[in-house]
């Protein structure tokens, strides 16, 4: 397939608008967060349009805390102000947003709709501490991992222990990821954490799930993000600078980590990346930057290797060298990532596309990656049970 603008193999879809709320501990409820993000996304479309032209709406949300756990996609239609809009909720835990974006891409690429909206939202800070800790573990394997006392911090703690033992590394390699993430978050006005941290601070934080300390973990955040997608043919009707979809890949893996042969990465991420690069006709060297799923510092190291951005076992030294910093060879998570920007579960995968939209249009302000032309979004569900990788390019 050939799409307009870039003239490369890919999907016939483009992002034409994007909106984002602040991430953090917020006073707004989920309805208001949805409204703010979608209003901003629709208003960002350069040549304004009639909302009634939307063909579908996709809501990405875990339903954290149990609030409106069923049928919540109807709220998206309500808050957009088009109550009859056909909507569906996509739930793949932390990868809900990435998968919702891919469903939307298929909808416009297949000709089902000309224009669709994707919104991700999570409200996580308005429930009791006990309920929050309950919900942080609902997306892992319930019968073995959870019964052994693990939430995701614990599962990633296991993976980190294996990674560090296998490569003979210490916790410092994890701290480097946190330092880089916070440095980027400090430039992002939407980020949950906007203060840099030192390596010493990161290493001194209390242990949550050894070897992971508090600064190895993403925060619990409220927030929403939304993007508007159009078919490639109609994209220029809405803006002169659409961001085109070049490649799409997704995969699953066994839910329980104990049933996977390789503990040094996620097979789902590797497969999703392989499919995405292949469908885009691209390779890692073609990327200007990457948005990767860094719910824990170890997750970013695994992601860099799974996506082929560096070799197996090289992610630690590569990060320490500054290669993934905002001005490094391949910037990773210039928005601060889940680690510093925050991780409102359903919103995260959509937020990654928001960042790519801003960066590739040159509107990312203080966090702009100079000359960004092509980027990848990598969104993982839980500890690698699902993964979505999508590649975007400037028109």
């Amino acid at each position, binding site marked *: 397939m050939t799409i307009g603008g870039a003239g490369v193999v890919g999907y016939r879809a483009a992002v034409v608008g994007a909106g984002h709320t602040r991430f953090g501990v917020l006073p707004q409820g989920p309805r208001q967060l949805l409204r703010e993000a979608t209003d901003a996304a629709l208003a960002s479309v350069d040549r304004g349009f009639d909302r009634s032209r939307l063909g579908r709406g996709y809501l990405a949300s875990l339903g954290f805390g149990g609030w409106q756990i069923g049928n919540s996609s109807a709220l998206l239609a309500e808050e957009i102000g088009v109550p009859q809009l056909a909507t569906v909720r996509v739930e793949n835990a932390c990868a809900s947003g990435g998968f919702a974006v891919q469903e939307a891409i298929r909808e416009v690429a297949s000709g089902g709709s000309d224009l669709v909206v994707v919104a991700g939202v999570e409200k996580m800070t308005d429930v009791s501490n006990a309920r929050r800790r309950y919900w942080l573990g609902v997306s892992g394997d319930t*019968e073995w991992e959870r*019964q*052994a*006392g693990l*939430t995701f911090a614990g599962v990633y*703690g*296991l993976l980190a222990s*294996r990674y560090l033992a296998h490569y003979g590394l210490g916790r410092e390699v994890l701290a480097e990821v946190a330092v880089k993430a916070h440095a980027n978050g400090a430039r992002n006005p939407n980020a949950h954490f906007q203060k840099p941290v030192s390596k010493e601070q990161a290493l001194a934080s209390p242990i949550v799930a*050894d070897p992971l300390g508090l600064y190895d973990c993403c925060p619990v955040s409220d927030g929403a993000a939304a993007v508007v997608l159009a078919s490639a043919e109609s994209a220029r009707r809405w803006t002169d600078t659409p961001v085109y979809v070049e490649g799409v890949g997704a995969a699953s893996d066994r839910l329980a980590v104990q049933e996977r042969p390789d503990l040094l990465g996620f097979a789902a991420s590797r497969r999703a990346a392989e499919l995405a690069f292949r469908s885009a006709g691209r390779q890692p060297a073609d990327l200007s930057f990457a948005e990767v799923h860094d719910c824990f510092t170890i997750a970013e190291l695994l992601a860099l290797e799974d996506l082929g951005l560096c070799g197996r076992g090289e992610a630690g030294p590569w990060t320490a060298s500054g290669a993934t910093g905002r001005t490094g060879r391949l910037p990773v998570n210039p928005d601060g990532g889940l680690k510093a920007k925050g991780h409102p579960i359903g919103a995260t995968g959509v937020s990654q596309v928001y960042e790519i939209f801003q960066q590739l249009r040159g509107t990312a302000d203080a966090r702009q990656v100079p000359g960004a032309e092509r980027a990848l979004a990598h969104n993982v569900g839980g500890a690698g049970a699902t993964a979505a990788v999508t590649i975007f390019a400037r028109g």
Partner: protein
Amino acid sequence: MRGLTRATAYLPSFADGLRRRAAPDEDAFTMVATAIERALDRSVADARPQTVHLVGDAGALDPSLLASLLGSPAEIVPAASGAFADAVRAAASAEGAAWVAVVQRADERSDASPAPGDGAVALRFDDGPEAIPLAESGLLRAGTTGASPLAALFELGRAPPRPGVWVGDWASDPTRARPVPRSPRRGLGPAPANVSEGALVPGPRDEEARAARWRFLADRCGACGVVTFPPRGRCRGCGHDDRLAPTPLPLDGGEVVASTWIGPGGQPTEFDPVVEVSGSYGVVLVDVGSGVRVTLSVADAAPEEVRVGARVNTRLRRLYPMEGRWRYGRKAVPADGSGGPR
């Protein structure tokens, strides 16, 4: 010749002075289970008990739990605590494999218990060349000393008439025990009736999984040889569902391949009582052989004992309360722990 063919003892790893103390996640059932497992020959189905007489605090435990542990339709006979001698006579004169299980958990008794504190013993009666006839076993005398049956058995077990039959913690040195956890009697008592925020594993799903969870029973495929665990009725290697044979995986000697230690705030809600008692807890991923790994909580250990590469054994323990009952499962303990090798 019929008689006593195995006498196994289990003592908790913790001690309070000279008395052993159960860990917070141990109860009468888990201690009986550990003693019985030490006497079971897992490779021989016929060795499973046909009758189990329960003596002491074991009288209060749910017989259906024991049936799940044994994996056989054994007849479970609860006996009054004074009826040790009667239970031994009945087991010695029965046909087939008959067992007597004795357990003592001090905080589950109304009166203060004498030494050795908490613990359990399993006595197996059967036919065999090594069998000790009841009259020569000393057991009848132990039943009349006035001490608790468990205390009398430990006195006997320290100098047994035929050492090959008596295995387990009989001679365990109390000075090698671990000090009791900081609040050993808090938090993990009777199952709270209503824990609304636990990982939901409904009763029928729990019962369905007990063979795998409690006994590490896996499926070995007759077509390709791959071992599937937990068993799900289909081979994960070749997809066959008609040539699966139940195969027990080793309960002991596994290798830790990943290890974490959960600090306060990192635990799911249903583990709050565990954190309340011990402050933190470990979780390990254990390679038990045949290409199988199992995720297990850690019991009776410090973090440095269960690092990557360490060897661990497993024991049945309380996990967390759900629907007013305890959910049980195996936990990892250091292979060289004070419980001694099996």
